[in-house]
């Protein structure tokens, strides 16, 4: 176990990213899909912080704040859509939310 390099952080964040993608692809409960998207955004943030430290540059930290703000906006709008969908179709299963499919 040597010292921690940016490679370690990138591997951790890619593993977290792939777990999130796995959740988005295989789950049918739309709330769990949203939580997986939050995991993906967290993976991106870990990357940004790691490279910000590596290059001694604060811009990465600032972009993490922007990503968090956009995640908050996404969660608010997405959960509003889930509520509206539930009111109309009485389901949170994405396989039944196919009114826009064809």
């Amino acid at each position, binding site marked *: 176990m040597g010292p921690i*390099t940016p490679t370690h952080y990138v591997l951790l964040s890619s593993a977290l990213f792939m777990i999130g993608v796995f959740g988005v692809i295989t789950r049918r409960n739309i*709330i769990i899909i949203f939580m997986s998207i939050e995991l993906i955004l967290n993976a991106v943030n*870990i990357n940004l912080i790691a490279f910000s430290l590596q290059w001694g540059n604060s811009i990465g*930290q600032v972009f993490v704040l922007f990503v968090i703000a956009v995640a908050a906006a996404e969660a608010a709008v997405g959960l509003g859509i889930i509520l509206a969908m539930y009111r109309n179709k009485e389901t*949170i299963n994405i396989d039944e939310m196919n009114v826009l499919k064809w």
Partner: protein
Amino acid sequence: MAETITFYMLGGLILLFAVLVVSTRNTVHGIIFLVIDFLVVALLYASMNSMFVAAIQVLVYAGGIVVLYLFVVMLVNHKRPPEEYADPNRRNWLGAAMTAAVLGELVIIGAYASLRPAAVSASATKVGYVKETAMVLYTDYIIPFELVSILLLVAMVGAIILARREW
């Protein structure tokens, strides 16, 4: 050495709780695991010397977003289990195989990279402290900052309109 142990411990916890989030049957349990995951990620930020981002992670993610999720789970009443119906055209195994392939690729990249480790960051500058982050945020990035505030306002109005019962 302490840094190495901290990283492996926090990284293992992050991945463990992420797996629990995507694999749990009960949505409320999933949200609890998500909170724990966010808090461990905040600890990772703190171990990377980024205290301000760690604080924002706890406040916004673990404090704000998760409460939104809990509200929605409580409003959405499960009369029938959400996963009982599956689209016959659904190809779960294809998605699982694709993510497994990318994960295998990551393992190969990690094994390859461990042969030639990247240089440890010099990082003598005080990256991550509140003062340095604020200096960049409020000088060079003041216009994106204001745009993000407008985005949050628009999202708030949009969420209220979407969640309204009737016009």
